[in-house]
């Protein structure tokens, strides 16, 4: 069961700089671990994370195996207008997850 934890302020004043925190459940298997019998455990990571604010991309990240399991990513944006943040995670083996959060900007 994949799940995401998003922290976006529910409301803000126009022009405020707000912090967005995201946490996504994912094993981020590096591809460098081996079992006791020597078999390589194949890589299985999230490779890309995008945030769109009312449809416009405001943040993007390329992730590598060095990002810890259950990737935690925080960034900032200027509260410009009321609306929606859309978050997308894409990874190996067709992994794709989305989440969204609303904000009221006065």
């Amino acid at each position: 069961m994949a799940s995401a934890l998003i922290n976006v302020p529910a409301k803000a004043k126009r022009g405020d700089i707000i912090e967005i925190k995201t946490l996504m459940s994912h094993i981020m298997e590096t591809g460098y671990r081996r079992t006791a019998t020597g078999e390589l455990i194949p890589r299985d990571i999230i490779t890309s994370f995008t945030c769109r604010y009312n449809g416009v991309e405001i943040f993007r990240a390329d992730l590598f195996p060095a990002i810890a399991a259950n990737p935690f990513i925080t960034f900032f944006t200027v509260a410009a207008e009321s609306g929606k943040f859309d978050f997308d995670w894409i990874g190996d083996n067709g992994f794709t997850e989305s989440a969204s959060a609303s904000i009221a900007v006065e």
Partner: protein
Amino acid sequence: MREPDISTRRQFLGLAGGVAALGAVPMVTLRPAEATPAMLATAIRSVVGTAMVRTGKVKLDIPPLVENGNTVPMTVSVLSPMTAEDYVKSIHVFNEKNPQPNIGNFYLGPRAGRGQISTRIRLADSQKIVAIAQLSDGSFWSASVDVVVTLAACTDEVI
């Protein structure tokens, strides 16, 4: 860089002996080939090209002594007015001794408000971390930190 066969086999046999005694099957992380300073330089060059990288403007916040290398909190912040004319385009983080030199690339822009990101990273060993920021005027700025990573005292077993 090839891992010498002898040390790999000795590690594996050592562990197999331990396995027989315990009657259990532990997960092994045999050390893969390490990234070298040359790989780090190549990775940086693929982002920066032939442009000059200056030190400054970038602050790399990472605990100097890490409690567990599996999950290390890291914050990179770049001194920038973050206006439409003068902002941080991207932040690239590299390491020296993990199997791969890249850690993450983060793409900001004039709407970011603050040139700062946080995440949690994995560090295989005590090593140097390098963060490089590209500004809107095309210039590159960097900071680096040496981090000490200790291993957990007791080995764990697979569930």
